[in-house]
């Protein structure tokens, strides 16, 4: 068995779901390892996906660790590799190496209320935690998901979010009013304030555009959340995934190894170079 960290395993695309169409297209790829030669992962970890002839991209694993048969990745079409991925079909084979990075300390959160706050494609990195919490529903207190997109067409995991209702309080938002929308209209941080979740015995997990995260954290602080009760993930350009190529270096950390998951208590000590 090769110990070569740079050599990807092969994964076949078993299903592709179009989450969001248009200029900010997002597709969810279900990938099954070829010949069972895969790896296990923890919530928050990432994998490097290869389209040979195009390159590699670091993508967060959007499926939960307890799902063993496949891994899911929700990918926005943005650059060379992600565009090539969007052009692939079910049955096509890509390279997958990983898992990379640290993890959300989900085990430490048992018995706590979990508040997820996502924006745009920022729901994907925290989705494994949502899935894990729902899978072990009785181990956790109240679970709340705030999630927003620019418009109703930008809402990803629509059906999955619908299915959560009952187990989870789901509060969706879009930036501006649309006919037939019965959720909140406005930005995600403001939607959080309308429900004002209590900080007692709670953990807030947020991911989305940097500007959203900034105001979410500001609002959470206002609601009494301490720095170590707020978790987020950061991203940086990456090439190796194993702390050597230097791309994702921020302060003494390499996001691919020491991140992507940070508590706000840890993150605010890092230089803001992400």
């Amino acid at each position, binding site marked *: 068995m*090769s*110990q*070569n*960290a*740079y*050599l*990807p395993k*092969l994964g*076949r695309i078993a299903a592709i779901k179009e989450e969001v169409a248009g200029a900010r297209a997002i597709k969810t790829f279900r990938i099954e390892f*070829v010949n069972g030669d895969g790896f296990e992962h923890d919530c928050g970890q990432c994998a490097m996906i*290869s389209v*040979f*002839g*195009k*390159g*590699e991209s670091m993508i967060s694993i959007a499926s939960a660790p307890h799902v063993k048969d496949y891994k899911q990745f929700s990918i926005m079409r*943005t*650059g060379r590799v*992600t565009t090539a991925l969007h052009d692939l079909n079910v*049955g*096509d*084979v890509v*390279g997958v190496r990983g898992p990379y990075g640290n993890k959300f300390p989900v085990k430490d959160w048992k018995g706590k209320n979990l508040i997820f706050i996502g924006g745009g494609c920022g729901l994907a990195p925290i989705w494994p935690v949502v899935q894990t919490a729902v899978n072990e529903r009785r181990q956790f207190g109240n679970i709340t998901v705030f999630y927003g997109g620019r418009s109703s067409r930008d809402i990803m995991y629509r059906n999955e979010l619908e299915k959560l209702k009952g187990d989870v309080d789901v509060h969706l938002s879009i930036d501006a009013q649309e006919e037939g929308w019965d959720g909140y209209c406005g930005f995600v941080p403001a939607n959080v304030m309308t429900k004002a979740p209590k900080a007692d015995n709670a953990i807030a997990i947020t991911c989305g555009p*940097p500007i959203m995260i900034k105001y979410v954290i500001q609002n959470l602080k206002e609601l009494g959340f301490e720095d170590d009760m707020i978790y987020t993930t950061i*991203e*940086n*350009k990456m*090439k*190796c995934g*194993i*702390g*050597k*190529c*230097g*791309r994702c*270096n*921020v*302060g*003494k950390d390499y996001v691919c*190894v020491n991140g992507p998951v940070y508590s706000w208590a840890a993150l605010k000590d890092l*230089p*803001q*170079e*992400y």
Partner: protein
Amino acid sequence: MTKTVAMEKMLNKADLAAWMGKLDSHRLFSPALEDEDVWNYMPVEEAAKVLLNHPNTVRPPKGFVFPQREVLYEYSQVPGEAPVLNETLPDPAPAVVFGVRPCDSRGLVRQDIVFTKEYEDPYYQGRRAKVIYVGQACNQPPSPNCFCMSVGGSPCAEDGLDVLMTELDGKYHVKALTPRGSELLAKGGELFKDAQAADKAAVEKAHASAKAHPQRPIKDLGKVAGALKANFDSPAWDEMAKACIGCGICTFLCPTCHCFDISDEVKCSSPCKGERVRTWDSCQFPDFTMHTSGHNPRETLGSRLRQRVCHKFLYFVENHDTQQCTGCGRCVSLCPVGIDIVSVVERLGQP
């Protein structure tokens, strides 16, 4: 582990070529004049012409273990089928590199840290295992910009070397530092004579005199990391980086810089065939950190100079308790616009 006593031998300068002649199981390299004033490591073609009287080379010897371009694997994929990957781990013939300056071998020790921490890098390791480094103490500083002593090194430092040679009158004092080094000396057989007390005294004297040469000082090395941290937001970074043209020379020629890019070089588009390669990259290039979205966490020259200096004198110290700069002075001597890491540290790395 049993501690082996370092083997100290003497070699007549005239016998250097004869020694090299006995090392034909290895590829040999030594500094040679490549162009006017440009010394670089070249294959030894005529051992008799090797003089080991070089200043430092323009390129550090890091390329022997971390080449500028390296194929990680080859891929080929027929449309609709699974790709076939062919791992191309290096298996080079063994090599001996002569004339390595102690700053550069200390650079190698820092590369070792990077390429073995957490994940081993099989490409680096594969080459590293095959290269023997024969160092040469700097009796005179090879460059006016040398500052090895200011960053914890010395002109006769042994870290990272298998053998250290010191030139004495008509002779070399040759000290084996590792088992690989001892084997290399053993191949020389009769050419080597045991170093006598007088020889050892002479080499100590030469080393003491080498250390006495004035170098560019860094006042309080232990306080540099803390001061850089305190000065992270200083406007002086932008000011000092203003002249930077972003050529990346400071990082490419640095014996410790290890950043790289990984990209696909396509040889044929259908069926898709090509190589995944890694190439040296530089934190001084604006697209080094640029996200696909266009957002760039280090978009200014000042932020990139700060990254280079802080990585060497702050972050590496926090992680590995040593500086990632060995004072070779290349980035100072060869910067086309005169950006000087010692001056930067003097200005922003002092309390």
